[in-house]
C-alpha cells in the first residue's frame, strides 16, 4: 500500500533521514519505534507531505506522493494525526470534527460518518460545543484521531499517540486503535517505546540515527533482544 524507496530528508543542511526503504501492506498495523531524535516523526511528516524528501520516492497505492502538498496527500486518503495532539484548541469540538468531515465529504462521506465516529468516542458527543482546548490530554488525542478518521483515510499516520498521557489513558487510546484495526484500517504508528508493539502491531521498524536499524513482522520475532540491540545501537 505504501512504499518508501531510498528516502532521504534534510532539515536545512542537517540530514535527518538517509536511505530509508520500507513497505507497508494494506490492513496492517505498523510500528515505527526508535529513540528520541532518530527521525521517526520526520519520516511520518515526510509521508504526509509536510516535509519534502531530498532524495528517494514515496508511493501510495501505486501513485507517487513524494513532493505533494499536505492537502493533496490528505485527499489521496493518507491522514496524519500529528504529534502532541494538535487539536484546534480555539475551535469547538464540533468545528474540529467538521474540519475532518469537509475533507471526507469530497470522498463521498456523509453525516452518518460523524455519527459512526462519535460512537467510537462518546466523550466527544457529550462536549461537542465546548472549545477543544478545554479537553484533557486523552480526550484531545481522541478528538485528533476522530478528526483524522472523518477524512475517510485508507492510511492513518499516528505520531506518538502515547506522548504525555497517563498509562491508563494510553490503554484507552490503544483500545480505539484496536477497533480500527478490526475495521481493517491501515496504520503507521510512531512510538518512542516498543512496549505496545507485541500486542498491537503486525510489523515493527526500528529507526535509529536516520536509518532503518531493524525491521520485521511481529509474529516472527521470537527474541526481542535483537530489536533492543537495534534500538540502543549495540551491534
Amino acid at each position, binding site marked *: 500500500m505504501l512504499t518508501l524507496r531510498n528516502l532521504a530528508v534534510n532539515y536545512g543542511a542537517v540530514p535527518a533521514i538517509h536511505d530509508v526503504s520500507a513497505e507497508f501492506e494494506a490492513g496492517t498495523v505498523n510500528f515505527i519505534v526508535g529513540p528520541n531524535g532518530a527521525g521517526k516523526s520526520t519520516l511520518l511528516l515526510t509521508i504526509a507531505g509536510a516535509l519534502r524528501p531530498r532524495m528517494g520516492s514515496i508511493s501510495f497505492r501505486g501513485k507517487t506522493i513524494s513532493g505533494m502538498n499536505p492537502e493533496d496527500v490528505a485527499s489521496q486518503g493518507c491522514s496524519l494525526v*500529528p504529534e502532541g495532539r*494538535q487539536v484546534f484548541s*480555539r475551535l469547538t469540538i464540533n468545528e474540529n470534527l467538521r*474540519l475532518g468531515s469537509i*475533507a471526507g465529504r469530497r470522498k463521498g462521506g456523509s*453525516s*452518518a460518518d460523524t455519527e459512526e465516529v462519535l460512537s467510537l468516542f462518546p466523550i466527544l458527543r457529550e462536549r461537542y*460545543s465546548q*472549545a477543544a482546548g478545554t479537553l484533557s490530554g486523552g480526550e484531545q488525542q481522541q478528538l485528533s484521531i476522530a478528526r483524522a478518521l472523518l*477524512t475517510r483515510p485508507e492510511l492513518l499516520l499516528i505520531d506518538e499517540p502515547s506522548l504525555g498521557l497517563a498509562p491508563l489513558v494510553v490503554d484507552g487510546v490503544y483500545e480505539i486503535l484496536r477497533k480500527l484495526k478490526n475495521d481493517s484500517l491501515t496504520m503507521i504508528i510512531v512510538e518512542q517505546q516498543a512496549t505496545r508493539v507485541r500486542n498491537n502491531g503486525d510489523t515493527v521498524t526500528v529507526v535509529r540515527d536516520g536509518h532503518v536499524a531493524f525491521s520485521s513482522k511481529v509474529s516472527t520475532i521470537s527474541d526481542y533482544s535483537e530489536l533492543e540491540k537495534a534500538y540502543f545501537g549495540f551491534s
Partner: protein
Amino acid sequence: MKNNRFVSSIPGDTWLLPSALAIPLGVVAVGVQYFGPPTIAVTVTEIYIRLVAALAIYMFSSNTGIISYGHVAFMGIGAYASAWQTCCVMMKPITMHGLPAFLKTANFPVVPSAIAAGVLAAVVALVASLVIMRLNSIAAAIATFALLFIFQSVYGHWDSVTMGVSTMIGLPQYVTPVHVWIWVAIAILVAFILQNSSIGLMLRASRDEHTAARACGARILKYRVIAFTISAFFAGIAGVMLGHRIGTISVATFHLDLTFLLLAMVVVGGLRSLSGVVLGVIIVSVIMEVLRLFQGGVSIGGQIVSLPAGSVQIGIALVMILVLRFRPDGIAKGLEFDVKRWLGRSSDEVALRRSDSGSSAAE
C-alpha cells in the same frame, strides 16, 4: 436530520447574532435620519461607514490571523471608481482626460456604480492576494502595508485619471444613515456566513495550527484569496460611502491616519468576534466625537472649556493602551453577545461559540 446536529454549525438559532447586531443599528439609523438633528445624522453616518470598513478588515483578519494594513487602499480604489462613474460630468473630460471614453462623460446611477466600484477593489485584491497570501503572518501583514503605499504612489501620480494629489470635488452626496446601514447589515451577514462556512472554519484552523489544517485537506492559499477578495469588496464600498458622504475625495484621505484609526477600533473591540468589532467601532467613535467636541470648545456654566489640538489622537492612543493592558483580547474578549440569554432562553451555544480557552499563546 438528527445527524446534522453535529456537522452543521449554523443551527437556526445562531442567526440571532447577526440580527441582534444589525437590527438595533437599523433602528438608530431610522431614528436619526427622520427625527434627529442633522449633525447627529452626519456623525452616525460616519460611524457606520467606519463600521463597514472595520467589518471588511474583520472578514479577512479574524479568519486568517493576518492583520491587514492594506484595506484602506481598497477604500480609495472604491471611492475613485465610484467618482469616475458618477461625478462631475462637465469637469471630467478636462481634469481627468486620461479616463476611458465611456467614463469621461458618464453619469451612471449611484447604487450600481457603488457595486461596480466594490467589484474593482475586489479584482485588485484578487490579483494582489495571489502573491501576498503565499506569505505568512508578519511577512503577509507587511506586504499588505506595501499595498497601501503602492496605491498611494499610483493614485497620487496618475494625474490624468485621478487628478494626482488634488482633491476631486462634486461627488453626489447621497449617503444617509439608512443607506449606509443597509451596507452595514449586508457586511455583518457576509462576515457571519464567511466565518461559519467551511472556508472560514478551515482558515480559523490554519490560524492556530497550520500543518494540521493542511493535513485536513485545507487549501489555505485558495481560501485566503477568497476571504481577501470578499473583504476588499466591502472596503471598496466603505470608500464609496465615505466619498459620497463628504462629496470630495483625495488620496491623502486614504492613508495612514484612516488605517490606524480603523485598526485601533478593531483592536479595542477585539478581532476575534463580530460583536467585538461592532463594539470597538462604536466605542472609539463615541470617544472621538466627545473629544472632538471639547477640542472645539464647550461652554460649561458660562466657562468655555476647550482641549488642545491633537486631543482626539491622544485619547484614542490612551484607550488603545488601556485595552491592550487590561483586555488584550479586546473589550468583547473574543466572545459574542449572548442573545439567547437576553431573550430569556437557556444559553449554551451562542455565547461561547468561539470561546478562547486560555490558549491564546497559540497565536
